[in-house]
């Protein structure tokens, strides 16, 4: 019986493999193109793998473009690190009382946070643009970065608070009672007990926030008058909308932008999936 060919199983695998091939095709062909010379792109089918690993596109995309991809990576880092840290810290501050303390209006504050999480921030670019202008943030390069970082923090806090609230609620109440009897204040309990306990959740959240902020192009587009401070996503968008960019360079830049995410994903896939499942709770 075991030797007999299982058609059901076979067709299941066939369906999965075909669908996954379709799914990976767009990414794969971009990777192919990025390793082809300009002449090869024009003459060969986009489905054929490159004849040799031509790295010229990558080298060129690192230095060409405004700003060059290398600079854009640096800008991304300058924006992402404080924005991720800030939004998670403020989110944790909000999550603590919402999950642990009893006070009037907690349900409403929680709903307000969910409202902030769902809020289509793409539609309020005018107030942000004008607030940053009123604060004089367009005058200097530091101001430019600050504007984008603050925008990410403001719109990131509700999401972080939501995720962390759900996590904090899973930590046993008895732990807190014990700490309180030992004379621990709320703040020291939060700082010395709860946050270290929540490290795995914080790491998952940091991963989600990092990819979110890394991927954002809107705030830089709206809040940064200077092209030289653009992060990677915005640079890529402007490369893509500029006519005359060579496809080799464009695909190489696109693939370079994917690499950090790809590396994180390959090593931390489990945590990404866990984090995503938490969003839907």
């Amino acid at each position: 019986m075991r030797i007999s060919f299982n058609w059901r199983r076979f067709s299941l695998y066939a369906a999965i493999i075909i669908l996954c091939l379709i799914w990976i095709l767009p990414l794969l062909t971009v990777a192919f193109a990025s390793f082809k010379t300009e002449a090869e792109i024009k003459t060969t089918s986009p489905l054929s793998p490159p004849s040799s690993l031509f790295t010229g596109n990558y080298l060129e995309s690192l230095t060409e473009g405004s700003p060059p991809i290398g600079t854009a990576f640096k800008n991304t880092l300058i924006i992402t690190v404080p924005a991720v840290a800030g939004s998670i810290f403020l989110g944790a501050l909000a999550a603590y009382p919402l999950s642990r303390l009893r006070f009037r209006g907690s349900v409403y504050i929680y709903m307000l946070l969910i409202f902030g999480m769902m809020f289509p921030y793409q539609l309020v670019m005018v107030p942000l643009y004008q607030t940053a202008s009123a604060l004089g943030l367009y005058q200097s390069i530091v101001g430019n970065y600050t504007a984008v970082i603050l925008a990410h923090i403001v719109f990131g806090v509700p999401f972080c608070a939501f995720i962390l609230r759900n996590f904090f609620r899973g930590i046993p109440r008895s732990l807190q009672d014990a700490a309180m009897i030992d004379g621990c204040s709320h703040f020291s309990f939060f700082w010395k007990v709860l946050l270290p306990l929540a490290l795995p959740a914080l790491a998952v959240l940091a991963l989600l926030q990092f990819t979110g902020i890394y991927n954002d192009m809107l705030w830089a587009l709206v809040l940064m008058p200077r092209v030289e401070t653009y992060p990677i996503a915005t640079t890529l968008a402007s490369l893509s909308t500029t006519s005359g960019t060579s496809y080799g360079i464009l695909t190489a830049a696109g693939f370079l932008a994917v690499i950090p995410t790809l590396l994180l994903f390959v090593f931390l896939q489990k945590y990404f999936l866990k984090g995503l499942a938490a969003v839907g709770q």
Partner: protein
Amino acid sequence: MVSLTEKKTAYLFLVLPLVCVGFILFTIGYLVVSSFTSGGTFVGFQNFTRLFTDDPYFWPALWHNIFWMIWAVVVPIGIGLVFAILLSRNIRGERIFKGVVYFPALLAGATIGVIWNWFYLPEDYGVLNSILGKLGLSSLANPNKLWINVPSSPVPFLWLVTIPILMISIGLMVLSFRPKISKFSFVGICVGLGAVFPLVLHFTGMVSTSLISILLASSWAGSAISMVMFLAGMQSIPRSQLEAAKMDGASEAQTLRHVILPALKPIFIILIILSAISSMKAFDIVYTLAGAEGGAGHHAADVLALYTYRELKVGDYGYASTIGLVGILVTMIPVIIYLMWIRRREAEE
């Protein structure tokens, strides 16, 4: 006394986060005030009258957002569920397959734009044209144009892909919400919403090749979220229920229909709400694929966020605020439904 300090601590913790949320509320207030101004002076309802009665871009952009919403609550959710059903059966290499489907969800809108731009290029440069050419199906496509820039009704190939996906997605959703539906009305709903509705849109020219191409690209990235959530939902179905179905001699299809799909209904609901909200946020993909004009100058895939951005860039802040405000009001419908749902759930706990 204890409760008093607890209360004080709570508010102390909440000060900074509430400043952030307060700022979000401030932006809405600002938008309301600003939408009654033009160049800094109060103009009453002038912006609104212009928007509703005398603006060639507003209604198409709003319609594209609404069509985006319809699409987003059907297509990515359906594709995600199909992947979840396939991958939930003890597949070898499950991790790799999941990774392949999930990875696009992590990419930036701008990156997705670059990738799919390459996919939709004209002639033989484009991946899609090249594949269709090899299969001898060029006549179904638009081989000489960049797909994203075609303002006319969708080329047959796009419907050939979309209609089956629509029918399967709608079918699964209907079964999940109404497990006892009769065969006749089931087929009716699937064909009506999945095939007749798109064809009506096609012949009235209400959607374009440009818009559907962009929506397919966005679903490529968006389906993973529903896949992961459906997989999590399937895992939480009690094993005993599945085994009982097996004991009763139910086939896999019957188990799917009578046990699994009804159990997934709450996940459907939350995904539908979240997708509806996220469809109003559409900006990055459209901007990167179709440019700031949303479809090479003819606005075939224009959306409200993009239109706001254009008005912002030309410095018409009052009018940009008006567009943004209308968009927010539309988004409020699914947001309020979601908040009511959350509140009921909190009350139950």
